């Protein structure tokens, strides 16, 4: 049987309606059924990482341990983005938003990554104190390793290196973050 509407494709959708005791039957192909019958057969999944994340955020407000329940309309002064905007899009507005919404972001980051502390690369030029502190952490780990192996000469060398860097650190200006 061909579609009642376009008469081109086979009718695969059969609609029977009873209006005022009158039974009306229509036989349509899936394309015409979408157009005229209000029935949808093609499904386009719409979830992206951003929309899934937005769903996660909607659960978060007011529940996360220590999450400060601030007005969701609070805005980032730098870009004008609000936490509501973030909940809808799953994206921040600018880098300043991380500081503005830190209280809300903290539990979310822990949920996504299992951690909320960066331990990786630090920018060479603008890393400032972070770069130095990272270097000290690395040396301290080495120090423990040498002490464990009872290589005290090497351990002493590293201890001196740490002292030197710590002096250097005090000369650096404190960065904003």
């Amino acid at each position, binding site marked *: 049987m061909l579609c009642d509407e376009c008469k081109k494709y086979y009718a695969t959708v059969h609609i029977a309606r009873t209006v005022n005791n009158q039974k009306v039957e229509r036989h349509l192909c899936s394309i015409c059924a979408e157009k005229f019958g209000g029935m949808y057969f093609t499904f386009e999944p719409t979830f992206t990482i951003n929309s899934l994340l937005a769903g996660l955020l909607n659960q978060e407000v007011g529940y996360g341990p220590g999450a400060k329940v601030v007005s969701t309309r609070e805005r980032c002064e*730098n870009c004008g983005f609000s936490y509501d905007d973030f909940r809808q899009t799953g*994206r921040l507005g*600018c*880098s300043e938003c*991380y500081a503005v919404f830190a209280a809300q972001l903290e539990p979310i980051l822990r949920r996504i*990554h299992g951690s909320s502390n960066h331990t990786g690369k*630090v920018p060479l030029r603008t890393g400032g104190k*972070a770069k130095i502190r990272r270097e000290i952490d690395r040396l301290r780990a080495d120090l423990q390793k040498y002490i464990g192996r009872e290589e005290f000469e090497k351990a002493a060398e590293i201890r001196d290196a740490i002292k030197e860097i710590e002096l250097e650190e005090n000369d650096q200006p404190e960065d904003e*973050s």
Partner: protein
Amino acid sequence: MKLDDFFANTIHSWMDGTGPHADIVISSRVRLARNIAGVPLPHMLTNQSANKVIESIERAVDDVNKRGNMGKLHLFSYENASGLERQILVDKHLASPALGQSCSTCGIVLNEEGSLSIMINEEDHLRIQCLQSGLQLAEAFQLCSSLDDGLEAIIDYAFQEKYGYLTACPTNVGTGLRGSVMVHLPALVMSGHAGRMLNTVGQLGLAVRGFYGEGSEAAGNIFQISNQITLGHDEEQMINKLSSVTSQVIEQEEAARKALLKNSRVSMEDKIFRAYGILSHARVMNASEAMQLLSDIRFGSETGILPKIETRTLNELLVITRPAYLQWTTGRSLEPAERDCVRAEIIREKLGSDNS
């Protein structure tokens, strides 16, 4: 250099089949997400400020070019690129389909070998990417990281000691690093173990997808494995984890290949020779059939059932038989039916010239 020159070059370094384990690992990719401090993120930019972002990245790229340690980098405006040109860059894995979606004023930086690219104003201001042939994640990261350092000499990155590199989406924050490998696993698929193995990989915090990224089916038995977590571990740990899981996947695939050849050699030979026969003689070939048959002859060539076919030829075929590339090659838009004929012809030519 024009974008067209890039398309004329059908082989980029990631396709040349020279890296370690290139028989199973087609390519390794590392990308770093970076943003400029204080500047609204791409989805918030006006055209004017988006252009400013492109200009400041251009200055940084010029500076890197002057120092000369990263080869020659070229910046292209993406706005003037046609839909076809964009699709070819996506098929060559040099750009992502999302470039142009968050912000229409965007651009792409490429080096001549096609091993380095920087997407400008995709989801983040910069997405620095390096592609290498075979299993070379550490090398890809080193190259990315050097380019990153070069750009940082001029650009003030959005960085916080606690959260690391700040990104548009919190799923990328921290290192901003996404490493991925493209692996060809025909024996695991044929022996029915691919699903379970990839499921296990998923439980380790790694994601598995098809050849063309998010949402794509694993056509031609090619899978993409990538890290998901970007915060809390350093770059080396992330790269090591992905490399070591990939090495185990390689071992499993090798074991499955041996078992298949031992237990069902005749049916394997039959499958592979049939694939070779069809590819060398067919007149009409759709994209998914081509992907499947190319996987079969790749398997045949690597296991010695077929005479050796160069890995680079097989990699090249994966890209040049894509719909957009076929249209670029013929210089006109093609109906699907016509496309299938051109595809069959190109495959016949490539396989013929390679083995004559």
